[in-house]
């Protein structure tokens, strides 16, 4: 009942290798089937995201023995040379494997510290593997624990609450002014990569009305189609600025495209309804004087970068709290694992004792022909009582007493001591 993890991530492998070793859902299912058929793993779960590919499993034998076979399997499955793959692969066993998964789920192992998407990806990977029968009691328990860790870290710490990119910082700031953005509208000026990122963020917030304005109408049309937005005519500011609550500008222009008088007229037409302007252009797209207008909030790229830096520091200060939650759940899982192992051990021990007693009686007591039948029965009874007192009773206590099981740190040692590698639960 050991756990093995073999995988690679953004820290250990370049994107070219990560791309080659990633799994589609169909591949994940096929890999799990093959690993079971070949007897490498009894339970399997493949976690594959853009930043990591990891195979979690419960091997039939020792986890350390199964790791090379798992690496070879990955090499063969993805047709990547083993020596190339081995440079990037990491192997974790038991406690370290559990801890690794819980840290992944908490967002502590992510490229963007505390990112929320990974929890959904872990949940989806588990759901898929569970539905296809690839997981068993150990991985079920392990991944349920991981999901709990992820939820707790997000609700009890601020690891994931602060935005970590200029676009997301801008969107979060808009929420500081307007609250939920779902009923709000935005105008995105420009149709480059930055505009695309912002539109993606706004769409994720469920923003009701999105408009795109760009010098090139074709590019604006493409972007609008991609995000379900409408196209605003370039330069028609008075009309374009009437409805949006958020305006994001990211165009290449030598002069500010949003001049003070334009915004001043728009604000008068809007009845001074608050306007949040995100100026992501370089040089600036918004006249600095606009920031002095009533109910207008202007944030430039520099302002947003400062906020991102502050947030990075704040997130990092939350790491110890998140690690404490991870450690707590690692302890819980290991305790559960030990209890399951000990219960299995107890069962094997009881069987062994009964067998030994039967063999002993056959070989020794039955040869004592001078004893009467009643005396032999009496000796057998005494032996039963002694065994009950010496071993069966402690074995039953081991099964029944949770605290006692906690005290026994190493079930493997007990197994070696009493079962001498003859029987393993």
């Amino acid at each position: 009942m050991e756990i093995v993890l073999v995988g690679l991530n953004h820290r250990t492998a370049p994107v070219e290798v990560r791309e080659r070793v990633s799994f589609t859902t169909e591949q994940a299912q096929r890999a799990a089937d093959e690993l079971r058929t070949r007897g490498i793993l009894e339970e399997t779960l493949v976690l594959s995201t853009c930043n990591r590919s990891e195979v979690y499993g419960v091997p039939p034998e020792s986890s350390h023995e199964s790791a090379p076979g798992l690496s070879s399997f990955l090499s063969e499955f993805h047709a990547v040379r083993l020596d190339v793959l081995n440079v990037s692969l990491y192997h974790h066993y038991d406690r370290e494997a559990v801890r690794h998964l819980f840290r992944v789920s908490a967002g502590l192992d992510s490229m963007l510290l505390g990112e929320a998407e990974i929890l959904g990806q872990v949940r989806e990977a588990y759901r898929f593997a569970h539905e296809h029968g690839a997981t068993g009691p150990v991985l079920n328990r392990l991944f349920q624990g991981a999901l709990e860790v992820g939820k707790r870290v997000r609700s009890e710490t601020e690891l994931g609450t602060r935005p970590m990119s200029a676009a997301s910082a801008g969107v979060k700031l808009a929420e500081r002014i307007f609250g939920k953005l779902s009923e709000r509208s935005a105008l995105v000026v420009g149709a480059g990569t930055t505009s695309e990122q912002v539109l993606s963020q706004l769409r994720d917030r469920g923003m009701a009305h999105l408009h795109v304005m760009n010098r090139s109408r074709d590019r604006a049309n493409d972007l609008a189609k991609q995000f379900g937005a409408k196209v605003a005519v370039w330069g028609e500011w008075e009309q374009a600025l009437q409805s949006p609550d958020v305006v994001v500008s990211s165009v290449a222009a030598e002069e500010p495209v949003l001049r003070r008088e334009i915004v001043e007229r728009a604000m008068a037409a809007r009845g001074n309804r608050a306007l949040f302007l995100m100026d992501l252009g370089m040089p600036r797209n918004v006249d600095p004087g606009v920031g002095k207008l009533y109910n207008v909030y202007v944030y430039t790229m520099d302002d947003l970068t400062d906020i991102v830096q502050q947030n990075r520091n704040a997130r990092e200060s939350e790491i110890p709290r998140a690690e404490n939650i991870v450690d707590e759940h690692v302890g819980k899982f290991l305790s559960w694992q030990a209890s399951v192992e000990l219960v299995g051990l107890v069962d094997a021990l009881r069987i062994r004792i009964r067998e030994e007693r039967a063999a002993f009686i056959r070989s020794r007591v039955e040869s004592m022909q001078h004893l009467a039948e009643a005396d032999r029965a009496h000796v057998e009874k005494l032996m039963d009582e002694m065994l009950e007192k010496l071993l069966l009773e402690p074995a039953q206590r081991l099964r029944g007493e949770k605290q006692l099981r906690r005290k026994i740190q190493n079930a493997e040692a007990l197994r070696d001591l009493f079962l001498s590698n003859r029987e393993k639960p």
Partner: protein
Amino acid sequence: MNHFYLILTALAYALSLWLYVQFLSTGRKLTGRLGTILLALGLVTHYFALLERSRGSHTVPYHDLYGSMSLFGWLLALTYLGLELFHRQRSVGAFVLPFILVFFLAAHLAPADRLPPPAAHGIVFAFHVTLSILAYAAFALSFVLSLIFLGEERLLRRHKVGDVVWRLPPLELLEQMSRSSVLVGLISISIGTALGFVSVDRLPGQNSLFDPKYIITLLVLALYVLYFFLARTTAWRGARASKLCMFNFAIVVLSFTVVNFYFSHSHRYF
């Protein structure tokens, strides 16, 4: 007099304040929830403290300065709790609880009452006073909310987005909360004032129809109605409306103190 409820109330409010401050500084949801629970507990024990005192002195709580201040604190806590539950927003608790605690404690430090009891009695008069104090409490809450709005708005405009700004309510929600609070105040003061005139009508010859309190109350009513409309629909929305709300509360304080003590013939602590 038994001090059991007083000590329990002071402890509950103080702990609630500490938890709300912790919630604001750490963002831990559990501390916020505990803050709310302790505030609710404080409200219950505060109620029993008021009840016990009323029974002991065989009169209503607003009979003296102590009772009026204590009742004001209780109604402020009640209004805030209602607003917190309605808007599902507890990060302003850290700013409201000091007012509740100060009014509760100040009531015990108030000088002994030497003024004669009010001439009016009965249930209509009791509602008049209670609703008036509720209106003052609601206006006090809108004052605190406007103060937070102005602080947060200033920080956002100056790009000083620190830890607290991320945990405070959005500006629009603060405005909504302030308007909700003013609405409670407007309804209360309207009904309370109407009941006051009914009480006066029942005491012919004992009260002047030209009491300055009537004038300032109608002024307060008019100013808050003005705020209510300006904050919703016109160019005044935002910081200007919040400043107007704070100005209005200054008039309320004037009505509550200077007018009551020095000019009104028939009003004392309400």
